[in-house]
Protein backbone atom coordinates (compact mmCIF):
# COMPACT_ATOMS: atom_id res chain seq x y z
CA UNK A 1 0.00 0.00 0.00
CA UNK A 2 1.51 3.32 -0.98
CA UNK A 3 1.05 6.44 1.10
CA UNK A 4 -1.60 8.77 -0.19
CA UNK A 5 0.20 11.74 1.22
CA UNK A 6 3.91 12.23 0.64
CA UNK A 7 6.00 13.77 3.34
CA UNK A 8 7.59 16.54 1.31
CA UNK A 9 5.70 18.53 -1.25
CA UNK A 10 7.87 19.19 -4.30
CA UNK A 11 7.22 22.49 -6.04
CA UNK A 12 4.94 21.79 -8.98
CA UNK A 13 5.40 25.14 -10.68
CA UNK A 14 8.52 26.78 -11.98
CA UNK A 15 9.76 30.32 -11.34
CA UNK A 16 9.23 33.11 -13.86
CA UNK A 17 12.37 33.51 -16.00
CA UNK A 18 14.25 36.71 -16.74
CA UNK A 19 13.29 38.77 -19.81
CA UNK A 20 15.28 38.62 -23.07
CA UNK A 21 13.97 41.73 -24.81
CA UNK A 22 11.10 44.19 -25.09
CA UNK A 23 8.37 41.65 -25.85
CA UNK A 24 9.23 39.11 -23.16
CA UNK A 25 9.81 41.94 -20.70
CA UNK A 26 6.30 43.24 -21.32
CA UNK A 27 4.70 39.81 -20.98
CA UNK A 28 6.64 38.87 -17.84
CA UNK A 29 5.86 42.18 -16.19
CA UNK A 30 2.17 41.73 -16.80
CA UNK A 31 2.23 38.19 -15.38
CA UNK A 32 3.46 39.53 -12.04
CA UNK A 33 0.15 41.40 -11.73
CA UNK A 34 -3.38 39.90 -11.64
CA UNK A 35 -4.85 38.77 -14.98
CA UNK A 36 -6.07 41.72 -17.01
CA UNK A 37 -3.01 43.90 -16.37
CA UNK A 38 -1.74 45.77 -19.46
CA UNK A 39 0.31 43.76 -21.98
CA UNK A 40 2.57 44.71 -24.88
CA UNK A 41 0.46 45.34 -27.96
CA UNK A 42 0.37 42.43 -30.41
CA UNK A 43 2.23 44.64 -32.89
CA UNK A 44 5.41 44.27 -30.82
CA UNK A 45 5.49 40.62 -31.90
CA UNK A 46 5.97 41.91 -35.44
CA UNK A 47 9.27 43.55 -34.56
CA UNK A 48 10.85 40.55 -32.83
CA UNK A 49 12.91 37.85 -34.60
CA UNK A 50 10.47 34.92 -34.92
CA UNK A 51 13.11 32.36 -33.91
CA UNK A 52 15.00 34.64 -31.52
CA UNK A 53 15.23 34.62 -27.74
CA UNK A 54 12.76 37.42 -27.06
CA UNK A 55 9.78 36.06 -28.98
CA UNK A 56 10.49 32.42 -28.18
CA UNK A 57 10.68 33.14 -24.45
CA UNK A 58 7.47 35.21 -24.45
CA UNK A 59 5.75 32.40 -26.34
CA UNK A 60 7.19 29.73 -24.03
CA UNK A 61 5.91 31.56 -20.98
CA UNK A 62 2.44 32.01 -22.43
CA UNK A 63 2.25 28.28 -23.22
CA UNK A 64 3.60 27.25 -19.84
CA UNK A 65 0.43 28.66 -18.27
CA UNK A 66 -1.37 25.64 -19.79
CA UNK A 67 1.01 23.14 -18.19
CA UNK A 68 2.13 23.79 -14.65
CA UNK A 69 2.05 27.58 -14.63
CA UNK A 70 4.42 29.65 -12.53
CA UNK A 71 4.70 30.19 -8.81
CA UNK A 72 2.83 33.34 -7.82
CA UNK A 73 1.31 33.91 -11.25
CA UNK A 74 -2.48 34.32 -11.37
CA UNK A 75 -3.83 31.13 -13.02
CA UNK A 76 -6.53 33.22 -14.73
CA UNK A 77 -3.85 34.44 -17.15
CA UNK A 78 -4.17 31.11 -18.96
CA UNK A 79 -7.33 32.28 -20.73
CA UNK A 80 -6.79 36.03 -20.65
CA UNK A 81 -8.08 37.29 -24.02
CA UNK A 82 -5.44 40.02 -24.36
CA UNK A 83 -2.61 37.56 -23.68
CA UNK A 84 -4.14 35.12 -26.17
CA UNK A 85 -4.09 37.94 -28.75
CA UNK A 86 -0.37 38.57 -28.19
CA UNK A 87 0.23 34.83 -28.28
CA UNK A 88 -1.63 34.53 -31.59
CA UNK A 89 0.57 37.25 -33.09
CA UNK A 90 3.70 35.38 -31.95
CA UNK A 91 2.35 32.10 -33.28
CA UNK A 92 1.71 33.63 -36.70
CA UNK A 93 5.32 34.82 -36.89
CA UNK A 94 6.67 31.48 -35.68
CA UNK A 95 4.56 29.43 -38.10
CA UNK A 96 5.45 31.71 -40.96
CA UNK A 97 9.16 31.26 -40.26
CA UNK A 98 8.70 27.49 -40.13
CA UNK A 99 6.74 27.37 -43.39
CA UNK A 100 9.45 29.45 -44.98
CA UNK A 101 12.25 27.18 -43.83
CA UNK A 102 10.46 23.98 -44.79
CA UNK A 103 9.11 25.10 -48.18
CA UNK A 104 9.18 22.24 -50.69
CA UNK A 105 9.34 19.56 -47.97
CA UNK A 106 8.77 15.94 -49.10
CA UNK A 107 5.40 14.22 -48.76
CA UNK A 108 4.63 12.09 -45.75
CA UNK A 109 5.78 8.77 -47.24
CA UNK A 110 9.10 10.10 -48.47
CA UNK A 111 9.62 12.00 -45.22
CA UNK A 112 9.13 8.85 -43.14
CA UNK A 113 11.32 6.80 -45.49
CA UNK A 114 14.08 9.32 -45.03
CA UNK A 115 13.80 9.19 -41.24
CA UNK A 116 13.98 5.40 -41.36
CA UNK A 117 17.39 5.30 -43.03
CA UNK A 118 20.28 5.04 -40.61
CA UNK A 119 23.15 7.15 -41.96
CA UNK A 120 26.36 5.17 -42.52
CA UNK A 121 28.58 8.00 -41.37
CA UNK A 122 26.30 10.02 -39.14
CA UNK A 123 27.39 13.22 -37.50
CA UNK A 124 25.76 15.44 -34.94
CA UNK A 125 25.16 15.70 -31.24
CA UNK A 126 24.46 12.06 -30.33
CA UNK A 127 27.51 10.83 -32.30
CA UNK A 128 29.70 13.46 -30.71
CA UNK A 129 28.46 12.58 -27.22
CA UNK A 130 28.94 8.85 -27.84
CA UNK A 131 32.47 9.22 -29.20
CA UNK A 132 33.99 12.09 -27.28
CA UNK A 133 31.41 13.60 -24.97
CA UNK A 134 32.62 14.50 -21.49
CA UNK A 135 30.49 14.79 -18.40
CA UNK A 136 30.13 18.55 -18.78
CA UNK A 137 28.71 18.09 -22.29
CA UNK A 138 26.23 15.54 -21.00
CA UNK A 139 25.20 17.84 -18.17
CA UNK A 140 24.59 20.69 -20.58
CA UNK A 141 22.66 18.41 -22.89
CA UNK A 142 20.44 17.18 -20.06
CA UNK A 143 19.86 20.67 -18.65
CA UNK A 144 18.82 21.81 -22.12
CA UNK A 145 16.55 18.85 -22.80
CA UNK A 146 14.97 19.05 -19.34
CA UNK A 147 12.64 21.72 -20.69
CA UNK A 148 10.91 19.00 -22.63
CA UNK A 149 11.69 15.78 -20.79
CA UNK A 150 10.37 17.00 -17.44
CA UNK A 151 7.02 17.25 -19.20
CA UNK A 152 7.69 14.45 -21.64
CA UNK A 153 4.65 13.42 -23.69
CA UNK A 154 2.47 16.13 -22.10
CA UNK A 155 2.35 18.42 -25.17
CA UNK A 156 1.17 15.51 -27.30
CA UNK A 157 -1.64 14.61 -24.92
CA UNK A 158 -3.60 17.68 -26.11
CA UNK A 159 -4.32 15.91 -29.41
CA UNK A 160 -6.18 12.95 -27.89
CA UNK A 161 -9.74 14.32 -28.19
CA UNK A 162 -9.01 15.19 -31.83
CA UNK A 163 -8.19 11.64 -32.84
CA UNK A 164 -10.65 8.82 -33.37
CA UNK A 165 -10.83 5.05 -33.61
CA UNK A 166 -7.59 3.31 -34.56
CA UNK A 167 -5.45 6.46 -34.40
CA UNK A 168 -6.75 7.36 -30.95
CA UNK A 169 -6.40 3.87 -29.48
CA UNK A 170 -2.83 3.52 -30.76
CA UNK A 171 -1.83 7.02 -29.73
CA UNK A 172 -3.13 6.55 -26.20
CA UNK A 173 -1.37 3.17 -25.94
CA UNK A 174 1.97 4.85 -26.69
CA UNK A 175 1.23 7.70 -24.30
CA UNK A 176 0.38 5.14 -21.60
CA UNK A 177 3.92 3.78 -21.98
CA UNK A 178 5.37 7.33 -21.84
CA UNK A 179 3.40 7.90 -18.65
CA UNK A 180 4.84 4.83 -16.99
CA UNK A 181 2.25 2.17 -17.84
CA UNK A 182 0.42 2.86 -14.59
CA UNK A 183 3.53 3.15 -12.42
CA UNK A 184 4.63 6.52 -11.12
CA UNK A 185 8.27 5.48 -10.86
CA UNK A 186 8.31 4.61 -14.56
CA UNK A 187 6.84 7.84 -15.93
CA UNK A 188 9.40 8.99 -18.49
CA UNK A 189 9.50 12.48 -16.99
CA UNK A 190 10.39 10.84 -13.69
CA UNK A 191 13.10 8.70 -15.32
CA UNK A 192 14.54 11.92 -16.68
CA UNK A 193 14.49 13.58 -13.26
CA UNK A 194 16.45 10.56 -12.00
CA UNK A 195 18.93 11.00 -14.86
CA UNK A 196 19.38 14.64 -13.85
CA UNK A 197 20.09 13.63 -10.27
CA UNK A 198 22.77 11.19 -11.50
CA UNK A 199 24.36 14.05 -13.41
CA UNK A 200 24.31 16.33 -10.39
CA UNK A 201 21.64 18.58 -11.90
CA UNK A 202 18.65 20.04 -10.09
CA UNK A 203 15.52 18.22 -11.35
CA UNK A 204 13.13 20.95 -10.18
CA UNK A 205 10.62 21.84 -12.88
CA UNK A 206 11.69 24.87 -14.90
CA UNK A 207 15.07 25.12 -13.17
CA UNK A 208 17.04 25.51 -16.43
CA UNK A 209 14.61 27.72 -18.34
CA UNK A 210 16.86 30.76 -17.97
CA UNK A 211 19.83 28.76 -19.24
CA UNK A 212 18.12 27.46 -22.37
CA UNK A 213 18.66 29.34 -25.62
CA UNK A 214 15.99 30.10 -28.23
CA UNK A 215 16.98 26.99 -30.19
CA UNK A 216 15.69 24.82 -27.33
CA UNK A 217 12.67 26.98 -26.50
CA UNK A 218 11.48 26.85 -30.12
CA UNK A 219 11.59 23.05 -30.02
CA UNK A 220 9.23 22.89 -27.08
CA UNK A 221 7.12 25.77 -28.42
CA UNK A 222 6.54 23.83 -31.62
CA UNK A 223 4.99 20.94 -29.66
CA UNK A 224 2.81 23.29 -27.61
CA UNK A 225 1.70 25.19 -30.69
CA UNK A 226 0.75 22.03 -32.57
CA UNK A 227 -0.82 20.43 -29.51
CA UNK A 228 -2.94 23.36 -28.43
CA UNK A 229 -4.53 23.99 -31.82
CA UNK A 230 -6.94 21.43 -33.20
CA UNK A 231 -6.21 22.81 -36.65
CA UNK A 232 -2.65 21.49 -36.33
CA UNK A 233 -3.54 17.94 -35.26
CA UNK A 234 -1.97 16.51 -38.40
CA UNK A 235 1.30 18.34 -37.81
CA UNK A 236 1.27 17.28 -34.14
CA UNK A 237 1.07 13.65 -35.23
CA UNK A 238 3.95 14.33 -37.63
CA UNK A 239 5.95 15.77 -34.77
CA UNK A 240 5.23 12.77 -32.55
CA UNK A 241 6.22 10.37 -35.34
CA UNK A 242 9.51 12.18 -35.92
CA UNK A 243 10.46 11.96 -32.27
CA UNK A 244 9.53 8.28 -32.01
CA UNK A 245 11.16 7.20 -35.27
CA UNK A 246 14.48 8.92 -34.63
CA UNK A 247 14.65 8.11 -30.93
CA UNK A 248 15.86 4.49 -30.79
CA UNK A 249 19.21 4.83 -32.60
CA UNK A 250 19.90 8.22 -31.00
CA UNK A 251 19.06 6.88 -27.56
CA UNK A 252 21.48 3.98 -28.08
CA UNK A 253 24.29 6.47 -28.71
CA UNK A 254 23.34 8.53 -25.68
CA UNK A 255 23.12 5.43 -23.46
CA UNK A 256 26.65 4.58 -24.60
CA UNK A 257 27.80 8.10 -23.78
CA UNK A 258 26.32 7.81 -20.29
CA UNK A 259 27.98 4.44 -19.75
CA UNK A 260 31.39 5.51 -21.03
CA UNK A 261 31.48 8.61 -18.83
CA UNK A 262 30.18 6.74 -15.78
CA UNK A 263 27.24 9.13 -15.51
CA UNK A 264 25.30 6.66 -13.38
CA UNK A 265 22.67 3.91 -13.66
CA UNK A 266 19.60 6.17 -13.90
CA UNK A 267 21.28 8.32 -16.55
CA UNK A 268 22.04 5.26 -18.62
CA UNK A 269 18.63 3.72 -17.99
CA UNK A 270 16.66 6.68 -19.34
CA UNK A 271 18.22 6.25 -22.77
CA UNK A 272 18.44 2.44 -22.68
CA UNK A 273 14.70 2.33 -21.96
CA UNK A 274 14.07 4.55 -24.98
CA UNK A 275 16.02 2.21 -27.28
CA UNK A 276 13.50 -0.61 -26.89
CA UNK A 277 10.41 1.46 -26.04
CA UNK A 278 10.70 3.61 -29.13
CA UNK A 279 11.46 0.65 -31.38
CA UNK A 280 7.89 -0.35 -30.49
CA UNK A 281 6.42 3.14 -30.48
CA UNK A 282 7.68 4.08 -33.93
CA UNK A 283 6.04 1.05 -35.54
CA UNK A 284 2.72 1.75 -33.83
CA UNK A 285 2.85 5.43 -34.67
CA UNK A 286 3.53 4.79 -38.35
CA UNK A 287 1.06 1.97 -38.80
CA UNK A 288 -1.85 2.97 -36.61
CA UNK A 289 -1.53 6.61 -35.60
CA UNK A 290 -0.54 8.06 -38.96
CA UNK A 291 -2.27 5.24 -40.85
CA UNK A 292 -5.46 5.63 -38.84
CA UNK A 293 -5.48 9.42 -38.98
CA UNK A 294 -4.95 9.51 -42.73
CA UNK A 295 -7.60 6.84 -43.28
CA UNK A 296 -10.06 9.09 -41.41
CA UNK A 297 -8.79 12.39 -42.79
CA UNK A 298 -6.67 11.94 -45.94
CA UNK A 299 -6.55 15.69 -46.45
CA UNK A 300 -4.22 15.97 -43.43
CA UNK A 301 -1.33 14.22 -45.21
CA UNK A 302 0.48 17.45 -46.03
CA UNK A 303 0.06 18.68 -42.44
CA UNK A 304 1.65 15.49 -41.14
CA UNK A 305 4.53 16.03 -43.57
CA UNK A 306 4.87 19.65 -42.45
CA UNK A 307 5.04 18.50 -38.82
CA UNK A 308 7.90 16.16 -39.70
CA UNK A 309 9.75 18.84 -41.65
CA UNK A 310 9.31 21.54 -38.99
CA UNK A 311 10.49 19.20 -36.23
CA UNK A 312 13.56 18.18 -38.20
CA UNK A 313 14.33 21.79 -39.04
CA UNK A 314 14.25 22.93 -35.41
CA UNK A 315 16.13 19.86 -34.17
CA UNK A 316 18.87 20.58 -36.72
CA UNK A 317 19.05 24.17 -35.56
CA UNK A 318 19.46 23.06 -31.95
CA UNK A 319 22.09 20.53 -32.98
CA UNK A 320 24.03 23.24 -34.82
CA UNK A 321 23.98 25.46 -31.78
CA UNK A 322 25.26 22.67 -29.52
CA UNK A 323 27.99 21.56 -31.89
CA UNK A 324 29.16 25.08 -32.70
CA UNK A 325 29.58 25.84 -29.00
CA UNK A 326 31.22 22.55 -28.10
CA UNK A 327 33.58 22.60 -31.04
CA UNK A 328 35.17 25.68 -29.62
CA UNK A 329 35.04 24.37 -26.10
CA UNK A 330 32.45 26.84 -24.88
CA UNK A 331 29.05 26.44 -23.27
CA UNK A 332 25.99 25.75 -25.40
CA UNK A 333 23.77 27.30 -22.72
CA UNK A 334 23.16 30.99 -22.11
CA UNK A 335 25.37 30.74 -19.06
CA UNK A 336 27.56 27.81 -18.02
CA UNK A 337 26.19 25.49 -15.33
Amino acid at each position, binding site marked *: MTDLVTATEAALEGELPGARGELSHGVLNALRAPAGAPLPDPGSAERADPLGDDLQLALYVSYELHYRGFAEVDPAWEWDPALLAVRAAMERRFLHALRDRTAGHPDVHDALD*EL*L*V*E*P*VDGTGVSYFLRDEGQLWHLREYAAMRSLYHLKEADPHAWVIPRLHGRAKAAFV*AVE*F*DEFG*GGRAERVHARLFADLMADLGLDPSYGRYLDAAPAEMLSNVNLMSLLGLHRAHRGALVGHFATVEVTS*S*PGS*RRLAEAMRRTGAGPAAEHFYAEH*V*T*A*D*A*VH*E*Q*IVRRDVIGGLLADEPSLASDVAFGIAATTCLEDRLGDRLMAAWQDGSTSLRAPL
Partner: protein
Amino acid sequence: MLVEGPVEVVLDDGTIVRSDRFTVALCTCRRSRTYPWCDTSHRRRGRR
Protein backbone atom coordinates in the same frame (compact mmCIF):
# COMPACT_ATOMS: atom_id res chain seq x y z
CA MET B 1 7.27 -8.14 -35.39
CA LEU B 2 4.80 -6.69 -32.91
CA VAL B 3 3.19 -8.95 -30.34
CA GLU B 4 0.86 -8.08 -27.50
CA GLY B 5 2.57 -7.83 -24.15
CA PRO B 6 3.37 -8.92 -21.55
CA VAL B 7 5.53 -11.68 -23.04
CA GLU B 8 8.07 -14.23 -21.92
CA VAL B 9 10.61 -15.38 -24.46
CA VAL B 10 12.70 -18.52 -24.10
CA LEU B 11 16.14 -17.92 -25.60
CA ASP B 12 18.28 -20.58 -27.32
CA ASP B 13 20.22 -21.19 -24.13
CA GLY B 14 17.04 -21.77 -22.16
CA THR B 15 17.00 -18.48 -20.25
CA ILE B 16 13.67 -16.73 -20.01
CA VAL B 17 13.36 -12.99 -20.56
CA ARG B 18 10.24 -11.00 -19.88
CA SER B 19 8.74 -7.70 -21.02
CA ASP B 20 5.53 -6.25 -19.63
CA ARG B 21 5.20 -3.47 -22.21
CA PHE B 22 1.68 -3.24 -23.72
CA THR B 23 3.12 -4.25 -27.09
CA VAL B 24 6.53 -5.73 -27.67
CA ALA B 25 8.65 -5.60 -30.84
CA LEU B 26 10.44 -8.90 -31.27
CA CYS B 27 13.62 -8.90 -33.32
CA THR B 28 13.34 -11.12 -36.38
CA CYS B 29 16.50 -9.92 -38.12
CA ARG B 30 18.83 -11.23 -35.38
CA ARG B 31 20.86 -8.03 -35.50
CA SER B 32 19.45 -6.44 -32.36
CA ARG B 33 21.85 -5.64 -29.58
CA THR B 34 18.97 -6.00 -27.15
CA TYR B 35 17.87 -9.37 -28.53
CA PRO B 36 15.12 -10.70 -28.42
CA TRP B 37 13.74 -7.13 -28.40
CA CYS B 38 13.98 -5.06 -31.58
CA ASP B 39 16.27 -2.03 -31.26
CA THR B 40 15.83 -0.80 -34.88
CA SER B 41 19.14 -2.35 -35.98
CA HIS B 42 17.18 -3.86 -38.87
CA ARG B 43 17.03 -0.43 -40.52
CA ARG B 44 18.40 0.17 -43.96
CA ARG B 45 21.67 2.03 -43.84
CA GLY B 46 22.54 4.65 -46.37
CA ARG B 47 22.87 8.31 -47.02
CA ARG B 48 20.08 10.57 -45.87
